[in-house]
């Protein structure tokens, strides 16, 4: 067991947990975006930043990836942290301020508008879909393509991928509904955003096969939540 202090509260947790897990298990809220219980920590959105005391002054770390250390003293609500989350939320608002999820997340850190401009898109590049497809489904039909602000989620070469089994796990984990599922004929579905109109394979984990799950009334549905 490891003993540490978060916001003045003395906490004991198992070795190997992250600061975020330790905080959450003890009722301390830290805002997150790319974090998802079912996925490995990623450290991409930096909403979950906290301050760690060190001999050389406070150090900012992402709580979702930083491991608990014996004797660590952590602060989750300092002025600096508030400022860092605010600017991150403003950047998110510039990107996807039209989505309810981002509006809510931003509001939770006191942001309702943005002084910045970015090309808008519902996708906030949290990589939950990519990681879910890889880590949970074990398929890896999609990945991050391009660098920097040109980064997008795409199947290889951005062309229709026969690897997608249309299990809709990505649709489940997408926080902003950037990915949707659409019925295109009475038997075929497509996972929107990237092309995937293909004869599907079976899931390696649960033997699920998209063809057997098709009597869905709605023409377009979003699997979410």
């Amino acid at each position, binding site marked *: 067991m490891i003993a540490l202090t978060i916001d003045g509260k003395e906490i004991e947790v198992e070795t190997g947990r992250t600061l975020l897990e330790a905080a959450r298990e003890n009722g301390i809220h830290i805002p997150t975006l790319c974090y998802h219980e079912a996925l490995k920590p990623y450290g991409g959105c930096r909403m979950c930043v906290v301050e760690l005391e060190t001999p050389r002054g406070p150090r900012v770390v992402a709580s979702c990836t930083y491991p608990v250390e014996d004797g660590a003293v952590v602060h989750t609500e300092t002025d600096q942290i508030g400022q860092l989350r605010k600017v991150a939320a403003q950047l998110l608002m510039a990107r996807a301020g039209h989505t309810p999820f981002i509006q809510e997340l931003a509001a939770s850190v006191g942001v309702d508008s943005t002084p910045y401009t970015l090309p808008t898109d519902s996708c906030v590049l949290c990589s939950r879909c990519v990681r879910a497809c890889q880590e949970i489904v074990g398929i890896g039909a999609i990945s991050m393509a391009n*660098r920097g602000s040109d980064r997008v989620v795409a199947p290889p070469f951005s062309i229709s991928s026969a690897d997608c089994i249309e299990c809709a796990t990505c649709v489940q984990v997408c926080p902003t509904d950037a990915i949707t599922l659409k019925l295109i004929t009475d038997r075929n579905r497509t996972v929107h955003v990237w092309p995937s109109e293909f004869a599907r394979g079976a899931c390696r984990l649960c033997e699920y096969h998209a063809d057997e799950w098709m009597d869905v009334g709605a023409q377009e549905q979003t699997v979410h939540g």
Partner: protein
Amino acid sequence: MKQLASPKELEAWRQEILAGVDPERPCLRVCDGTGCRALGSQELLGKLHEALNGDGGENGKVDVVATGCPGVWEQGPLVSVDPQQIAYMRVSPDDAEAIVNETLGTGEVIDKLLYKDPSNGEQIVKEPDLPFSSLQTRRVTALSGQIDPCRIEAYLAHGGYAALARALYDMDPEGIIDEVTRSGLRGRGGAGFPTGVKWKFCRQSQSDEKYIICNADEGDPGAFMDRSLLEANPHSIVEGMIIGARAMGATAGFIYARSEYPLAVEHLNLALAQAREHGLLGENILGSGFNLDIDIRLGAGAFVCGEETALMASIEGRPGEPRPRPPFPAQSGLWGKPTNINNVKSWSSIPLIIANGPEWFAEVGTEKSKGTAIFSMVGKINNTGLVEVPMGITLRELIFDVGGGVPGDKEFKAVQIGGPSGGCIPADHLDAEIDYDSLSKLGAIMGSGGLVVTDEDTCMVDLARYFMNFVQEESCGQCLPCRWGTRVLLDILTRICDGEGEPEDIGRLEELAPMVKVSSLCGLGQTAPNPVLSTLRYFRDEYEAHVIEKRCPAGICRGLITYEIDEEVCTGCMVCARNCPVDAISGEKQEVHHIDTDVCTRCGMCMQVCKFDGIRVY
């Protein structure tokens, strides 16, 4: 082929090599580094052999040695004539015959090929007397330009691999780490972490396998220190790595080099093959029972792949994206095994420390930064090139004495140190002593040693925009602050340079830049705002001139300047009108000309072609 099975055999071979060296034998050293090759050194070598007519080479009367770059790339191709050490610069293949017939034949010095001091026009004959050479402290680069990098014998003749023999036979791993720690060597890849401490962490990690890596990714624009060292003295890096492997208990080594460095890779491959052939690499090195092999991995030229965790991901075959630390490479690195990664210059400092002792190494430098620093000096400076100077030299000495100052009668403005992750330092701080800590206090970083000198004609907002453009393109895009923060910072800077900035933009830069610096996942994002922050710190008035007065004080930003013809000066020669690519200039022959500001694209062509200096920028 000699398989060396003990230090004794190594020494015996060294003596044999030295016995064959005749210090009086004439020798032409021709720089054949990448820079000089681009300037025609290969053709020059061919012509020299032709002129020597069979006399060149081992069996002839004159040695002809293709060396790596000694640093003065702008003056290339270089030819040095031994034993007199006459230094010729900007030598063309047509000069080959004169060098052979006159200098080698009658001993005559060819004046037109000598270096001329730009300050007083004085000609300098001998290599060690060149101003930029005499002011340097050459240690790591001592053999650059002196030896043939493709022959292990040349390295051995200068004491090569003696440090390795000592490390294998006379020292235990802790002893090696102790000497490296006491030398005070700090990582030359940028961050300046104490090398001995890092080695100790890696040594302490328990594992069946451990790796060492040489970071030869060198991605800073304008930086060629590592390339030059890899080309000029590859064995020193290999020797340093084997010593490090022995100290840390590493089982395999990798050199991660960019594929844009084909000559460096060729020389490294040769060095590795030679070391293997002679029992200095592979199994049972020098008969000591210690095993290590080193492989080369090529990177595809992404700046972020120089970051250690991205570099390891790239070696593993994954996308070159950094990952959060901890765990640090010393605990879990390449393929999850303890790994130690050092820069090219750090590795090649190791044999020097082991051979000469940590005290010798620490003789030079400041209290917390020992040894020498290698800078690549470019921009508005007379002697562009690579220099090795003691840590603690002042910026003034470096730029004005070693670098020869700013060309023309222009005034020095600032120096950007540390590449895109660094910052710029203005004239007020020219007397600052350069070391890791002083530079970071001033808002710059040592980085890998890239140094860009600017003069009064440089716009600092434009400079910040240039570096921001670089980092924004090189950001891997994984984390939000760097992916979008640098993008927004670049958009704002571009807007300001285009004349469309608002006074509020300065506040936006000041709010966003610190967030990118603190919140980003890896060193790229954490240092990306430095050029903006340091120019804002020292040249805030230039930003204000751009957004409030809508004026670019340096006369660079096209959106903010107007070209006009000085009526007093214009002779109506029509040269500008003929050269203007968009026909913005009108006027009759021998009458004053005018520029139509609406048509003018501010390309500056008229200014370049006007013989009477009659174009004004406002």
